């Protein structure tokens, strides 16, 4: 603005009157004598002859200089004619806008300082303009107090002024502008460029790194609309700098974007955008990406569940933290979706250890793996996972548990180590040689229409006769498939509430009793195409049914799941055995008279003799 003031000084200053007329008149007013007149005339004549040519020479020499001076002065006068007004206007505006105290309040109670930094404006590309050049509604005579709902709306309205000089066509030439202003809720110009301190991009673009260039706009509170959903485009620079990717330029991941390119990409919704952008991670993290592809998460995603997690859901998009962070109670990303499971974990012996500061204590990814997350199968014992850390578990169990290996095979670790949970006996159709579950598709192939019997048994569940039919059908197909059983927990989530081993089930009677609560429910577990397990009710009576002697020949707890048929047979046999002496003794008692008579007859015969 000082330029204005300089000009104001030039315009308002008075020039000294240097006209030759006024000098001459002063000479004529002095009194003169004859000698002096003669001398004067001589001098005058000589002067005319000397000074005349000199003056002419001087005049000729100075003429172009004078002309130049006149032109400059005239131009200066012409320029100062308008500048003079600007300066006045600027001085007037700055009379208020230089003050820190002038604040505008918007409709939403937002406040904004309306102070203008004179120095910044002077340095900006618009430093030559007057205030009203942009703020056309404001003049020295008129300063309407416009009301705006918000700061944002104010910025949008004021930014309209830019169009006065920068045409739409001109803006659309630059990819960044095209990307920004093509959006329905395009940010106002000031969002990226600022308002009064706009610098020419050519001056700094070359020197700036790609990230710096991108952040020029993206560190601002930018947002866009993706089919009605608001998507923030703001990148928190601090988080970005603190991320494990801090050394990467933006275009390292966003390879199609650079200082010169900014393609417009269309997405159905925000979720699709996240999924698409997560694809860039595989460029570097190929192994992790492939592991994820084999996970239940990718499986769900491919089946159409677009909420299934992708890279950014767990790691974040720009604030990607170190691996160790994901292994902390507060940093583990799994809890975002699996909150109830995480709560169960928190109360477990593992969670408690973690919270007490034991960094080695397992967290979600320790057991489930971080990327190749497999579906939780209630019918399977997590033995291999547990033994990964508890390497001496098998030996410790053998110290006190008879047939320890068998128990560890047939019973999920969680069945004993989450003592309060409800249990279920899971039956699975498995390949007899490998022990792997036969999946749904294969099972349908083996059983044909019989598959429906397996899955639509109703409230009471599949009964022993149907189970026998299934067994027969499997045998007919020569499928080498059998039915195996495992004792697990009814609710997978409860598996995470692992208690300290001092609370684990150790009493044999807990299972080896027909009244055991462990065998109250039975379910058939079938592996669905996505890897999940589907459970279908099975009547618990199948466990003790003689019909299932062959179909469920592997799962058996002495006393706990004993055959009811043998109970009845046992009663008959024992009572039969007891009845022999009772009946025989009774008959012997009843026939005493016969034997007595015979003895007497014999005695009589012997007496006669």
């Amino acid at each position, binding site marked *: 603005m000082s330029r204005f003031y300089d000009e104001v000084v030039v315009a308002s200053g008075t020039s000294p009157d240097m006209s030759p007329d006024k000098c001459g008149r002063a000479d004529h007013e002095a009194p003169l004598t004859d000698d002096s007149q003669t001398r004067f005339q001589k001098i005058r004549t000589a002067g005319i002859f000397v000074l005349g040519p000199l003056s002419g020479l001087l005049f000729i020499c100075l003429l172009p200089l004078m002309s130049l001076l006149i032109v400059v002065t005239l131009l200066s006068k012409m320029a100062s004619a308008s500048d003079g007004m600007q300066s006045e206007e600027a001085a007037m505006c700055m009379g208020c806008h230089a003050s820190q105290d002038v604040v505008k309040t918007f409709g939403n109670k937002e406040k904004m300082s309306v102070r203008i930094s004179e120095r910044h404006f002077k340095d900006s590309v618009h430093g030559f303009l007057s205030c009203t050049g942009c703020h056309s509604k404001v003049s020295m005579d008129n300063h309407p107090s416009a009301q705006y709902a918000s700061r944002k709306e104010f910025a949008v309205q004021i930014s309209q002024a830019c169009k006065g000089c920068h045409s739409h066509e001109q803006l659309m030439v630059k990819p960044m502008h095209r990307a920004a202003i093509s959006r329905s809720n395009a940010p106002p110009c000031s969002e990226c460029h600022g308002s009064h301190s706009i610098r020419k991009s050519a001056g700094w673009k070359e020197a700036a790194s790609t990230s710096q260039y991108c952040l020029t706009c993206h560190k601002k509170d930018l947002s866009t609309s993706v089919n009605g959903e608001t998507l923030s485009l703001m990148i928190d620079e601090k988080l970005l700098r603190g991320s494990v990717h801090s050394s990467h330029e933006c275009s390292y991941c966003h390879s199609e974007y650079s200082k010169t390119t900014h393609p417009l990409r269309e997405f159905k919704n925000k979720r699709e955008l996240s999924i698409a952008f997560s694809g860039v991670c595989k460029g570097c993290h190929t192994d992790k990406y492939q592991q994820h592809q084999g996970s239940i998460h990718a499986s769900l995603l491919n089946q159409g569940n677009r909420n299934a997690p992708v890279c950014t859901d767990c790691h974040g998009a720009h604030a990607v933290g170190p691996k160790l962070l994901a292994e902390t109670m507060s940093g583990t990303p799994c809890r975002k979706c699996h909150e109830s499971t995480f709560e169960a974990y928190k109360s477990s012996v593992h969670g408690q250890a973690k919270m007490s500061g034991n960094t080695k204590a397992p967290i979600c990814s320790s057991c489930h793996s971080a990327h190749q997350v497999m579906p939780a199968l209630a019918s399977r014992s997590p033995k291999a996972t547990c033994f990964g850390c508890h390497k001496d578990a098998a030996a410790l169990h053998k110290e006190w548990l008879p047939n320890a290996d068998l128990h560890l095979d047939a019973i999920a670790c969680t069945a004993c180590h989450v003592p309060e949970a409800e249990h279920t006996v899971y039956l699975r159709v498995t390949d007899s040689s490998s022990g792997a579950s036969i999946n749904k598709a294969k099972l349908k192939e083996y059983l044909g229409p019989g598959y429906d019997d397996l899955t639509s048994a109703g409230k009471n569940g599949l009964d022993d006769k149907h189970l026998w039919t299934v067994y027969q059908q499997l045998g007919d197909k020569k499928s080498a498939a059998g039915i195996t059983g495992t004792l697990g927990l009814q609710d997978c989530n409860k598996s995470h509430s692992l208690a300290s081993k001092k609370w684990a089930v150790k009493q*044999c009677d807990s299972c080896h009793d027909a009244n055991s609560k462990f065998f109250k429910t039975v379910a058939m577990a079938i592996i669905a195409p996505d890897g999940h397990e589907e459970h279908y009710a099975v009547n618990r009576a199948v466990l003790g049914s003689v019909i299932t002697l062959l179909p469920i020949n592997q799962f*058996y707890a*002495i006393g706990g799941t004993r055959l009811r048929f043998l109970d009845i047979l046992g009663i008959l046999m024992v009572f039969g055995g007891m009845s022999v002496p009772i009946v025989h003794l009774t008959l012997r008692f009843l026939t005493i008279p016969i*034997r007595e008579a015979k*003895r007497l007859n014999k005695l009589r015969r012997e007496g006669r003799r």
Partner: protein
Amino acid sequence: MKKLYLHPMAVRICHWLNAFSFLVLILTGIQIRYRDVIKVTSFRTAVDIHNIFGFILIFNFFLWLIYYLVSGKFKVYIPTFSLKGFLLGCIRQARYYGYGIFVGEENPHHSTPDNKFNPMQQVAYLNIMVLFIPLQIITGILLWDLKGFAYWIGLAGGVKIVDSVHVLLYLFFTSFLFVHVYLATLGHTAGEHIKAMFTGYEEVPEHGHSH
């Protein structure tokens, strides 16, 4: 009355060791299988005792087998090779138990050291000693270490079948025990056979009566 030395010392020891083992195995068997009905000891205690006496029984079985094979007394268990003679003997013995005993007939069989058992006893004890007890021993050993004998259990048709066979034999032995003890009272006097099983000597009438 005359005294017959029917049961040598080795036989008596085997018998009573067997008897005691059977009793303990039956009682602990109840504790293992029917805990919902009766609970005297813990499952673990019952299993431990059952295992110990199971092995005692196995040891005893082999003592019995070796003794009978070496001494040549095993033939007392072998019924006559004549099918007709065997069947007639069985019918005659069955007739005695089912009729003759009530009307005061004599037991058609007279025990001697070389011919201890009547045909029905022979077929019963032969089956018990050569078939049932070995089968019970085998199934018992399989159940004792299910994982170690998984292959054999698989061949047998699964743990459920192995256990069912073990339980069926268990029920048979339990019910047979009542019959066995009752038959033991059918000697010259009610305690005669039992006493002989302690002393080895059985007093038989001069004309020779036995069960």
